[in-house]
């Protein structure tokens, strides 16, 4: 994968850059938004990891620039992981510090795979475009939210990590399209999408 790392901490940039390169990835490192934007204009990346507090620039402008070149973005933040974070809808995935490198690799692979998949699945009449990370054509979804929603629709167990937060954010986003649809826990069955009256 061609990965852009845009992180203000040079030690972290160097450590992560080394590991991802050892894993066979082509890594470009930027320590501020201006540098990241310049790299993004010169070259297309398969995925980008951007720190939310990247200096010398606006995160939204940088993610829009990356999206223009069809680069999925993973935003890493010091903020607490919450449904409100997922509702910001700036990126295809959110991670919080501290994170483990295997989790980062898994996330980067996840967003890259989805971005190139071309898949669309249906949630009780609402279309979820996986490659565009969109639900109902307009609501931005994250990589993990799509995984959770797919698991629920297929009747598979939902991954337990931060499950309640993802269910809450998915319900909030689904309500924007159709308030009657929500994911609920059914005893003995697990999470299901319910259409309420």
């Amino acid at each position: 994968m061609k990965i852009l790392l845009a992180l203000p901490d040079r030690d972290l940039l160097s450590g992560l850059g080394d590991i991802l390169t050892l894993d066979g990835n082509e890594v470009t490192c930027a320590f501020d938004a201006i540098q990241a934007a310049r790299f993004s204009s010169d070259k297309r990346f398969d995925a980008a990891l951007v720190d939310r507090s990247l200096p010398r620039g606006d995160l939204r402008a940088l993610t829009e620039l990356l999206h223009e070149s069809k680069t999925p973005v993973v935003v890493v933040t010091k903020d607490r992981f919450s449904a409100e974070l997922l509702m910001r809808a700036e990126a295809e995935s959110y991670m919080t510090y501290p994170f483990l490198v295997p989790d980062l690799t898994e996330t980067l692979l996840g967003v890259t795979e989805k971005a190139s998949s071309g898949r669309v699945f249906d949630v009780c009449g609402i279309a979820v475009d996986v490659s565009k990370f969109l639900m109902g054509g307009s609501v931005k979804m994250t990589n993990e939210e799509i995984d959770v929603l797919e698991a629920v629709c297929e009747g598979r167990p939902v991954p337990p990590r931060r499950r309640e937060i993802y269910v809450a954010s998915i319900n909030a986003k689904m309500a924007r399209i159709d308030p009657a649809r929500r994911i609920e826990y059914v005893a003995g069955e697990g999470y299901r999408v319910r259409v309420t009256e």
Partner: protein
Amino acid sequence: MNKVRKKFIIYAMAAVFVLLTALLAVINVINFSAVADDADRITASIVRAGGELGRDEAPFRKDERGDMRRRDAAIGPESPELPFSARYFTVKFTPEGNGEIVSFNISAYTEEEAITTASSLAKRGGCGFVDTYYRYRVTKENGETVVTVIDQSRELAPSYRILKISAVGEAICLAVCLAFLIFISRRLFKPIEDADRREKQFLAEAEREFMVPLTVIGANAEAIERTHGPDERTQSINRQVKKMTEITKKIGALTVFPVGEERCDLSAIAAGIADSASHGFAEAGVAFGSDIDAGVVVTGDSVSLRKAVRETLDNAAKFAKERAFVSLKEEGGRVSLTVSNGTTLPDGNYDRAFDRFTRFENAAGVEGDGLGLSFVKDIVKAHNGRLSAAVENGVFILRITL
């Protein structure tokens, strides 16, 4: 407003109200009692005088030398002016119940009204007030009943005025006191609130600032492992990074307890978490069961309550020996979540389990930082709930009541 400051104001106002009311009540009771006593002495004098105070008593008296002296001035029953100023009537009733006016020196009643009033008072007996401003006395002697009613309006009017002034004065005092307490408590509690806010801010900032270095340490340890292969030291670094991450996150989370006011389906929360926990118990060879009432709803913060339920079950998962059980019941308007698990701890009270960084002897070799249950305690307290922990017959029982 800070909860503690609010409580301080409420308790202080309650104390002021009780003291002020008691003081003014005592003053007014003494005042009214004095008026009643004076009136009773006058009516007693009237009865002793045969139902009528003699006005032919001269305002003068002879002294020891036989000289005429003016009577000493006095107030109330001792006043030499009393026979001339007292407004009263006396009615005598025969044993047969027939009433006759003995003296009638009053304008507010007609003679018929006087006899009617006296007749009802005769049945009442004793002494007391009638028609707001009149004091009566009923005396029975030789089968006859004598009822004396005296006008006390001039004496009572100031007393009622004092009573009204007391009530208004008390209301004003309480209002001023409340304003003063609000003002002074703001200054008194400001240092405490500032310290509390600074502590929370520091913890929140510390949490945030620790996160990146922890990531750097973990990433560099991993980079070393990739280039030189894993060894004890890098694995130790990874373990400690993980431990520090958990502690830092929990310390940071202690600073933020949003207590929302939404209706939370606690049954769904508990069932979902129990369901995911059951796999872990099964893998660990622990028999796990649950008895969760459906439809249990509480008002609170769903994210916090989820954390509390998860931490409680995580705690059981770490220390459960052979068996674990979770139940959720609603009884008498209270919701009770109980998590129990087999344990090697001796029987006794284990409320200390909710203190920060507290671990018991069965925690040796078990991963953890002693913060999970203190977390649960903070969440439950924020929801005005109670919790308890105890070991009974080899079973650790943790109970949360909301």
